[in-house]
């Protein structure tokens, strides 16, 4: 009887010992997921954590990995997070360059008058419908802030 009890308690103790030291994958997953920022998906298999999703910057990506590594029972972290490409800033040409380039671009459109001020190209006069797209394509390549089209389309 005594031996049985002793054995039983040993089994329980052993079980508790293992459970305590090796949290299962689901528990690890839940614990890490709760700490990670939105947009990060956490998957755990045999103590190996895989992070997926898209984050704003490298710092966030590194932080997410640290959080996962700090969790008890984690053996390894595979960081598959991607960093969102930063928006390419809008480039607007200087007026001096723009004035010259607009003059070049509109040279073949004698009925079109173009003025440049603070990056804005103001178009007045008239144009044939067929030529309008060509003119707009030429002007859009010059990096203006805006094309203010007041042309009369014939």
């Amino acid at each position, binding site marked *: 009887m005594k031996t049985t009890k002793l054995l039983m308690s040993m089994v329980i103790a052993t079980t508790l010992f293992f459970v305590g030291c090796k949290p299962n994958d689901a528990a690890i997953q839940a614990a890490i997921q709760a700490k990670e920022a939105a947009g990060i998906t956490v998957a755990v298999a045999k103590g190996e954590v895989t992070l997926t999703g898209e984050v704003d910057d490298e710092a966030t990506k590194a932080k997410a990995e640290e959080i996962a590594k700090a969790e008890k029972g984690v053996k390894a972290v595979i960081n598959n997070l991607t960093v969102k490409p930063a*928006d*390419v800033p*809008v480039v607007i040409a200087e007026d001096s360059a723009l004035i*010259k*380039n607009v*003059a*070049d*671009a509109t*040279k*073949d459109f004698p009925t079109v008058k173009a003025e440049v001020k603070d990056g804005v190209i103001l178009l007045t006069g008239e144009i044939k*419908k067929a*030529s*309008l*797209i*060509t003119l*707009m*394509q*030429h002007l*859009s*390549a*010059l*990096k*203006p*802030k*805006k*094309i*203010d*089209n*007041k*042309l009369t*389309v014939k």
Partner: protein
Amino acid sequence: MALADKYKTLTDAATAAGIADLAVREQDGILYIDGTAADGATKDHLWEVYNQIDPNFTSGDLVLNVNVAIDAAVTHAKVITESSNLNIRKGPGTDQPIVGKAAHGEVITLVNRSNDLWWLVRTNDGEEGYCYAQYLEAQA
């Protein structure tokens, strides 16, 4: 982001057409779309979509800057003026003296494309100078 909605058909078309380095952002009430198209037809298609959304481009709330990608190996270009000859100038600018002309439809040699707007070319007669790049179509 009302502008992004207004031009959604266009940005969707750009994505569908596989425009490289596509960047779409709104700044001070104007939407800027930049990118590189694989060919001239793709670029023209986007402009048609733009024209459908904003007939005759009168809204002034979009700058569509889509260029056509050119293979570095390309050495010749066709003159795509409407009908007239294309001026070849001493330097890059219409203020530069004209040193020669290339006929409409003529295929000429590309020497240097380091300037986006003005390409250095050489005609079959050996005249060398700068042409307005918008009137040249790179030959594959």
